[in-house]
């Protein structure tokens, strides 16, 4: 198949491929299937592609592309989680590129609604994902695929209530730094019947496992009445479990939970070091929008709901094995 395609290519394109030979593994195989003229769908987000959470979103996006015969491309921001200026430019670039459909995260509606409306105005169907579900009508998007951080927090609070915890330490970013993280924490505070303390990790250290561990252990030292710990996201799971190990018997007697299913979390659940994990199932945030858009583009199917909620699912040591065996197939 590759061979016949290559024969049809212009010499110019062949030149490009030659230049790119060193990078050949990086070029999406979908690019080589021009002959079939598949749908082209772009995802424009506020996150660098390397972010642990978005790695799963992108996997879902790419799998959906393969399953549905759609050419997909991800474009996030360079380095900074939430750079609305760059995201706006990327959306404009996407409009110029003229894809068949767009999937856009909308963390700052006051800054981005204008340009997203420009996309829908140009006749490109848009599905919002991850954040900004409240803007679906304003920007004339088809629907929103994502989750509600407040619900995640409330479910976490209920889990700790069920486990009989009295005082939860939440490992989180400084209040005000990331609105969706704040919403998770506030949801937990709302639903949890005991006391809540915060271990705040400065944004600069969000990828520094050692610092996160130290901050957590300091808080545990300071207040011995803490009998449960909650990691607000993927950043802090491995360091939290390290802190559990370092706390010896006291650590074993406490309850441990988190949001986001990372490798560390899976290991934690399997070894019963982690009591529960709220899996946002963000893979579906990459997958569903491609389904929605391709149904819309190929069958004219318009979603009748403003929001597809993808999570969370509560994963525990009891059901982790089933999930893992499914994902390996």
């Amino acid at each position, binding site marked *: 198949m590759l061979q016949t395609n290559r024969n049809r290519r212009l010499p110019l394109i062949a030149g490009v491929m030659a230049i790119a030979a060193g990078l050949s593994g990086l070029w999406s195989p979908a690019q080589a299937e021009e002959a079939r003229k598949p749908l082209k769908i772009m995802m424009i987000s506020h996150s660098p*592609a390397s972010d642990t959470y978005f790695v799963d979103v992108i996997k879902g996006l790419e799998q959906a592309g393969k399953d549905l015969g759609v050419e997909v491309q991800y474009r996030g921001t360079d380095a900074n989680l939430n750079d609305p200026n760059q995201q706006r430019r990327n959306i404009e670039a996407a409009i110029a*590129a003229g894809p068949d459909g767009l999937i856009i995260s909308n963390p700052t509606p006051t800054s981005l609604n204008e340009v997203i409306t420009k996309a829908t105005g140009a006749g490109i169907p848009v599905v919002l994902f991850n954040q900004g579900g409240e803007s679906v009508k304003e920007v004339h998007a088809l629907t929103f695929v994502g989750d509600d951080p407040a619900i995640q927090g409330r479910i976490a609070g209920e889990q700790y209530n069920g486990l009989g915890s009295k005082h939860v330490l939440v490992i989180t970013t400084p209040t005000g730094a990331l*609105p969706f993280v704040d919403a998770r924490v506030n949801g937990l505070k709302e639903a949890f019947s005991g006391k809540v303390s915060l271990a705040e990790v400065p*944004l600069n250290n969000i990828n520094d496992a050692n610092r996160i561990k130290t901050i957590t252990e300091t808080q545990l030292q300071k207040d011995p009445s803490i009998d449960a710990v909650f990691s607000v996201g993927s950043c802090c799971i491995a360091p939290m479990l390290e802190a559990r190990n370092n706390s010896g018997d006291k650590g074993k007697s406490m309850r441990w939970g988190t949001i986001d299913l990372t490798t560390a979390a899976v290991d934690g659940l399997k070894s019963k070091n982690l009591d529960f994990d709220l899996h946002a199932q963000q893979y579906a945030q990459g997958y569903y929008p491609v389904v929605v858009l391709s149904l819309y583009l190929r069958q004219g199917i318009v979603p009748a709901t403003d929001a597809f909620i993808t999570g969370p699912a509560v994963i525990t040591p009891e059901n982790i094995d089933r999930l893992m065996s499914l994902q390996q197939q």
Partner: protein
Amino acid sequence: MNSPVQSGRTDAPEARVSLRSLLVRPEFTAIAGTIAVFAFFAIFTGDAGFLSMAMTRNYLEVAATIGIIAAPITLLLVAGEFDLSVGATVAAGEIVMSYLIVYAGWPVAPAFLATVIVAIGIGALNGYLVVKTKLPSFIITLATLFIIRGAVQGILRMLNGNSVIDGVRSAAGEDPLVWLFSGMVGPFSVSLIWWIVITGLAAWVLESTVFGNRIFATGGNQAAAVRTGIQVDRLKIMLYIAVAASAVLVAAINIFTINQGNANSAVGREFEVVTAAVIGGALLTGGYGSPIGTFFGALLFGMVDQGFFFTPLPDVWFLTFLGFMLLIAVVINNYTRNAALKPRGSSQ
């Protein structure tokens, strides 16, 4: 390296001299590199949208927000000093100005002037610390980077419990001055005009004024500059103030374009502006540099940044891609400069 050339061909010395005089310009490689990068994206991604007017506007916008700061940074580099705090100063400018407009209800003009005054304070502090402590400016301004960035985040959290101030343009309403920062000139953003004007100003100051000569003298040989009576300390403080003021201009462009002031804005900008200056031919050791070259360095940066979008490469490779582009640019730059400077140096 030069012996066969010099002994062999005596028939074409003029051609060689004119080529040399072209190569010796610090901006030469930046211009050549910009043309090469433009050609690359135009040929390989032009159909995908790189050549469209909207995208031309976009990469000029990216380049402008780098170039506006990179122009005074070039003067500072020529004078032999660094300023790593510019990204944090942009964030400080955004938050101060946004706060005055959104929460204090000030009109744009006084809010902008007040922010410039804050920036003058930051620049003066940077300059004062550098000249008084005589420590490397790299370290001093690294410290002020952390201090300013942290203070902006901390103070804003105390003020509104958040890391952003939304609705700046909406709060400014019909204020005509908003146009100065986020308006359009024909198909392009007004930031392009600011960028050209500031580059022209910096180039004029450096090439055609006594002050410019003093900047060269300070960066070239500071001890000699002091002996000839140049007030080196005062000159450096003034340059730090100019850099901080340019950061405020970028802050104003950002908040009115995107309707939001962000305490985490412009992270890493300090390296982007230095990169633009270095691509433009400036030496990190001082004494050599060109605002015109820096202009093209920033333009190249903007094109790479926006052009990548249209390549089929997955997003995670952007930084690698950028890194290779910059490495190629500076290696060529260095090679041609060395080749060009040797004969010129001997003739002086």
